[in-house]
């Protein structure tokens, strides 16, 4: 049995990149379909069977669209910003285990690209670094809507990182490790974390939505208020990279939630672990779309108010209670 | 014919009128509405429609026929009258096809109007319809008998105004009316219906085609869509047309017309003239005016090189040759050119008029003839024309002549070498003198003889006249009543009786009479002339003399002018002259014209080394008359405005003047500069009115007031028989509807450029003939013209390229040789 090598890591990195990109693309299709169904529409139908090739069509469109940069924009930053979004999203994914370790062609493959033992913190850190994408995009494009989008980015990300971190603190305390693999193992012997830490789960979900910039918290690019926020001046594949980043983040959050709170890739009754986690991730992804179809936007001030005055205190209280319970 | 001013009351409104005016006309002049379908203002009442029924002093009269009397009280409507009128309108609507949707008259139809006005909303009468078809009476007239309401306006106008009397009522073949109606329906409506059911309009010569001058006045007066211009049938609707008030420029009448324009077709948004309309109550049009409207110079753009060449040509020009189809403004421009550039202005017809007017002025002291044709038509009852081919030279003069016979119960003398079979039909009291060319002076002597106090005449004249008079005897047949006594046997009793009876018997008797040699010389029957003239002179009060183009081109024009002045003073006659062409009078007043000369010629609508032409054939395009603004001087001595109906994209004469540094901003800026010392007024073009009021007053431009000229003592010269022309003669005369190149260009005018002769002469000449003049020759087709009599042939001059004026020289008659052509 061969151990994983540097070559293997590179192959895995490329695979993750390719697969997640593809899934992100497919995610757009799914999103459009789900939203359509929830409004009793058909969604994309005409490109390929059931509109399946819509992704390809969109891809072609995005690649062939004119790539323009506003005259007064800071060109370098303007060009770099989408890359930051996409890159941080994928880097974050590198520390997330999705499947159980497995052996293929006689090669042992660990389920994780980079097994840092503080994985959960790493993911959070990379997602935090992801804020530079929208932030720089908004600041560099010399557009007032962009600036407003950037300001909202900064405020929203800083605030909700706190909530994310504090909400995850309680499960971390219970598991006693920052490694996501440990979390998964914890689930093998304990009931799902969601049953033990429901408050933490809800807080994490809310914060996750906020950090992935999803409706109802997509204030950075709220079309109704600020055109497209930080993405106002973007088009073509640069805009596409924001899009891929967003979907990659959605997947990351889905995976995190599945592993931390929903039992990870442990086998579930008769369902093998790899299938179980795919179903869980899929559900989480669907939940995001479902929410988008159901709920309206939140007003920015209410949103900040919610973070600092409701969610953070709740998270702190949750941590304290958890600590007391553990001590006792 | 002076008449008394009277006052009548119509519907409580006091109206001023003149004795003899019809009530209807008085009402119309005062803006009081009386419905009338069949009546035409300037014609005799037809009494066909009976709808103009009113009550005058509690008596029912027809207002078109009843003359106003002083203090009369007229009520235009009460219940009984309204009932009668409504019944009449209902009868008119019986069997009238319900095709207003497609009818050409729809929108300006009097049947529609009166049906609505009188509130006909239900029909009480019915009768089986008769099939009545459509007919094309001539190349321009279209008659739809189905639509005809037999108001006979067309018949009336053709007879009373035009003089052709080419149409009449004919049998319709309709069913007789149900007798029951006679009791149940109003009387007038019944009798009107009775007549309506029996008649339609037919050509009066018994054929299917009218034999007339194709003036189309009948189509204008038709209140419904029955009579229309053939080319207009189903082309467009009346309400889509834009009316542009203008002046017809084909002859010197200067008739008021409306060009009616609309876009050409779906594909072509350019304006097109669809028809010409006139105010037929006050002015009658001729065929050229009505149908000759599409002569515009279309698709012209500003071509700078051509314009530059034109500037150079005008600078270089020695002579500008032009004709009288020109506005006053343009004439003034040409005169300005003459003054500044020293060019010679050549216009033979206007020059002839100009010199004749000058001779007349020297003899009479008046700058221009004193009277106009409108007054003559209204007031005169004895009209004499000398030297004008009445039927061809100017349609309106002919209408005047005819209308005087019909409406004023007038009489007329027609002096002309070319015989015309139409003129005698104008009235019973019309005498025609078919004299020889050159004898025009004798005609004047005849007039002086008959109408002047011989003692007051200059001695030479008196002596000349007296020299023609002699006392001769003639045999007259007289009816004498003779008393004859015969013996008769009574069949019953067998007794013999003597019966005395008066039996008429013709007796021949020798009587002495005053033989008028002048009349004889002019080709009339001198023996009976005296009696005839006595009859003609009965109840005649107002006399008018009309002179024509023959005199202007007469070798002894000067003497004739003096005679005319003498006739005017000695006989107390009104005097008017017919200008030869459209604006000849204006040109004669505005330009100093020169005789023909050699040199570089710029032609304006005339041939030349460089041609400015509105015909589209010249070196530089000019606007035609329907594309131009400007004024014309009419034979009625009025300066009237005309407007552009069709867009013109090229250069105008004013642009040329601007190119020479002599122009003004717009052509119409010249209007106010027309010289006041020649009778014009300094009025802006836009201030000139162009229309009629309800009482027929003409509000068009302004009348000329030509100042008097110094009188110069001049003696009338004795008549010289040497100028009488003999032999084969040609007369320069256009066919009825042709006046110039523009009428020729119009698609509805077909008269060809050919030799016109009486039928007998035409047969003699064959189909084609070569006419040899002293100065050249011409090969022409021969066309037989029914109306001409005598041997003189007519050669038209309406095509400027043929240069007919040069061939004829300074006379309207020429001795020619006629050879059979190939």
């Amino acid at each position: 049995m061969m151990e994983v090598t540097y070559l293997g890591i590179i192959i895995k990195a490329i695979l993750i990149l390719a697969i997640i990109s593809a899934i992100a693309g497919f995610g757009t299709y799914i999103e459009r379909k789900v939203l359509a169904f929830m409004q009793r529409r058909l969604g994309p139908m005409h490109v390929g069977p059931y509109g399946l090739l819509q992704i390809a069509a969109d891809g072609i469109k995005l690649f062939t669209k004119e790539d323009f940069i506003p005259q007064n924009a800071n060109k370098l930053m303007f060009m770099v910003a989408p890359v930051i979004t996409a890159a941080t999203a994928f880097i974050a994914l590198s520390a997330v285990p999705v499947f159980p370790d497995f052996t293929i062609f006689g090669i042992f493959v660990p389920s994780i690209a980079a097994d840092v033992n503080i994985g959960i913190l790493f993911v959070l850190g990379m997602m935090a670094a992801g804020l530079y994408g929208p932030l720089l995009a908004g600041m560099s494009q010399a557009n007032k809507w962009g600036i407003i989008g950037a300001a909202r980015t900064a405020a929203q990300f800083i605030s909700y990182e706190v909530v994310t971190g504090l909400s995850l603190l309680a499960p971390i305390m219970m598991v006693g490790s920052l490694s996501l693999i440990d979390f998964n193992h914890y689930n093998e012997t304990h009931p799902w974390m969601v049953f033990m830490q429901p408050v933490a789960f809800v807080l994490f979900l809310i914060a996750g939505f906020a950090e992935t910039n999803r409706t109802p918290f997509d204030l950075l690019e709220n079309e109704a208020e600020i055109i497209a926020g930080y993405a106002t001046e973007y088009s073509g594949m640069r805009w596409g990279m924001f899009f891929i980043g967003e979907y990659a983040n959605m997947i990351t959050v889905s995976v995190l939630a599945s592993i931390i709170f929903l039992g990870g890739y442990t086998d579930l009754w008769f369902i093998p672990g790899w299938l179980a986690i795919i179903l869980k991730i899929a559900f989480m992804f669907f939940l995001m779309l479902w929410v988008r179809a159901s709920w309206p936007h939140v007003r920015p001030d209410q949103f900040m108010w919610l973070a600092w005055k409701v969610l953070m205190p709740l998270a702190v209280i949750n941590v304290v209670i958890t600590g007391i319970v553990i001590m006792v | 014919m002076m008449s008394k001013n009277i006052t009548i009351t119509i519907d409580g409104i006091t109206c001023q009128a003149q004795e003899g005016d019809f009530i209807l006309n008085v009402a119309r002049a005062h803006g009081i509405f009386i419905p009338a379908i069949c009546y035409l203002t300037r014609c005799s009442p037809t009494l066909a429609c009976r709808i103009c029924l009113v009550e005058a002093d509690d008596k029912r009269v027809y207002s078109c026929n009843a003359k106003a009397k002083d203090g009369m009280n007229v009520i235009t409507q009460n219940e009984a009258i309204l009932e009668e009128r409504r019944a009449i309108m209902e009868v008119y609507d019986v069997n009238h096809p319900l095709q207003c949707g497609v009818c050409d008259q729809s929108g300006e139809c009097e049947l529609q109007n009166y049906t609505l006005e009188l509130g006909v909303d239900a029909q009480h009468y019915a009768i089986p319809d008769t099939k009545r078809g459509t007919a094309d009476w001539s190349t321009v007239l279209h008659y739809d008998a189905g639509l005809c309401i037999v108001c006979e306006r067309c018949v009336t106008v053709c007879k009373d105004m035009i003089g052709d009397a080419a149409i009449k009522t004919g049998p319709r073949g309709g069913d007789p009316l149900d007798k029951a109606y006679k009791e149940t329906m109003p009387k007038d409506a019944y009798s009107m219906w009775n007549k309506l059911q029996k008649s339609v309009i037919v050509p009066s010569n018994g054929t299917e085609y009218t034999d007339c001058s194709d003036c189309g006045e009948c189509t204008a007066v038709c209140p419904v869509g029955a009579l229309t211009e053939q080319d207009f049938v189903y082309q467009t609707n009346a309400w889509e047309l834009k009316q542009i008030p203008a002046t017809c420029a084909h002859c010197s009448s200067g008739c008021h017309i409306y060009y009616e324009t609309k876009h050409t077709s779906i594909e072509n948004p350019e304006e097109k003239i669809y028809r010409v309309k006139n105010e037929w109550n006050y002015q009658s049009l001729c065929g050229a005016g009505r149908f000759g409207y599409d002569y515009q110079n279309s698709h012209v753009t500003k071509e700078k090189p051509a314009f530059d060449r034109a500037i150079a040509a005008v600078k270089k020009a020695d002579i500008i040759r032009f004709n009288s189809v020109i506005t006053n403004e343009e004439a003034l421009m040409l005169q300005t050119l003459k003054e500044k550039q020293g060019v010679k202005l050549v216009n033979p017809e206007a020059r002839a008029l100009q010199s004749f007017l000058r001779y007349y002025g020297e003899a009479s002291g008046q700058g221009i003839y004193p009277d106009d044709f409108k007054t003559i038509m209204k007031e005169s009852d004895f009209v004499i024309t000398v030297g004008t081919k009445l039927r061809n030279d100017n349609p309106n003069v002919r209408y005047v002549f005819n209308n005087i016979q019909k409406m004023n119960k007038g009489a007329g003398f027609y002096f002309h070498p070319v015989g015309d079979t139409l003129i005698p039909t104008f009235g019973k009291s019309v005498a025609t003198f078919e004299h020889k060319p050159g004898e025009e002076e004798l005609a004047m002597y005849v007039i002086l003889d008959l109408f002047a106090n011989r003692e007051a005449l200059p001695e030479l004249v008196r002596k000349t006249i007296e020299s023609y008079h002699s006392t001769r005897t003639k045999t007259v047949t007289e009816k004498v009543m003779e008393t004859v006594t015969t013996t008769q046997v009574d069949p019953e009793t067998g007794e013999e009786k003597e019966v005395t009876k008066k039996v008429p018997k013709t007796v021949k008797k020798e009587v002495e009479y005053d033989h008028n040699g002048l009349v004889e010389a002019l080709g009339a029957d001198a023996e009976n002339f005296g009696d005839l003239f006595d009859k003609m002179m009965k109840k005649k009060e107002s006399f008018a003399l009309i002179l024509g183009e023959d005199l202007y081109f007469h070798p002894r024009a000067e003497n004739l002018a003096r005679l005319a002045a003498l006739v005017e003073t000695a006989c107390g006659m009104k005097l008017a002259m017919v200008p030869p062409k459209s604006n000849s009078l204006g040109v004669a007043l505005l330009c100093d014209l020169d005789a023909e000369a050699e040199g570089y010629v710029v032609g304006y609508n005339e041939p030349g080394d460089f041609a400015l032409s509105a015909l589209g054939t010249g070196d530089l395009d000019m606007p035609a008359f329907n594309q131009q603004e400007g004024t014309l001087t009419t034979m009625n001595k009025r300066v009237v405005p005309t407007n552009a109906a069709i867009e013109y994209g090229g250069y105008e004469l004013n642009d040329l003047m601007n190119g020479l540094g002599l122009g003004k901003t717009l052509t119409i800026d010249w209007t106010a500069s027309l010289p006041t010392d020649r009778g014009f007024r300094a009025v802006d073009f836009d201030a000139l009115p162009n229309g009629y009021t309800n009482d027929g007053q003409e509000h068009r431009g302004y009348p000329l007031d030509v100042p008097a000229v110094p009188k110069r003592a001049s003696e009338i010269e004795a008549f010289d028989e040497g100028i009488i022309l003999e032999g084969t003669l040609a007369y320069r005369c256009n066919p009825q509807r042709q006046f110039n190149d523009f009428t020729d260009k119009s698609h509805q005018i077909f008269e060809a450029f050919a030799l016109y002769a009486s039928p007998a002469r035409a047969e003699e000449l064959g189909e084609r003939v070569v006419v040899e003049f002293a100065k050249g020759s011409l090969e022409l087709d021969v066309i037989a013209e029914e109306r001409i009599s005598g041997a003189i042939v007519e050669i038209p001059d309406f095509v400027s390229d043929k240069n007919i004026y040069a061939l004829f020289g300074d006379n309207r008659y020429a001795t020619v040789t006629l050879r059979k052509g190939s």
Partner: protein
Amino acid sequence: MIPFAFYLFAILITGLFLVTVMSKNVLYAMTSLAAGMVLISGLFFILGADFLGVVQLIVYVGAVMAVYAFAMMFFDVTRDVEERHDKPWLVFLLGGGIAVTLVVIFAAPIMGETVHALYPPVAGATNPQAVGLVLFTKYLLPFEVASVMLLVAMIAGIILAGKKMEISLSAMDEDMIADTKEHA
């Protein structure tokens, strides 16, 4: 491999911080500073201090720099910033002096080869656990003091920033706004 990564990171970090100092463009300065922070966390990872690396990421990149960026938004980032140097030699002297002092402070023990871990790592303890052990034993007092100080700072900040927070200009009509201005 590790030295290579170290030098790579070191060069990049130095370069990026140089950009931060030298650039006249706020956006470049800020971005390169943030990038430098990210790369510093790389140094931690090389040293095996994963926890500190991630903390570096979260605290500096995710929070501190974001607050910087927030402040930067009040500038027109499309325009260059002209710095005014009244006494450039003073800046150079002070900056250089501090740098030298820091280098000396950190280099001295290494030079003297007297570096000893007073509390050697506990065997088997993972990275965060090791940090926790140190913090809650030897450095308990400074840690708690720092916590209290931070708490004080936070409360002070909230109080300072929270002044007049209940006044909402958008909820006031014009007269009321004028009144508040007068009072101020």
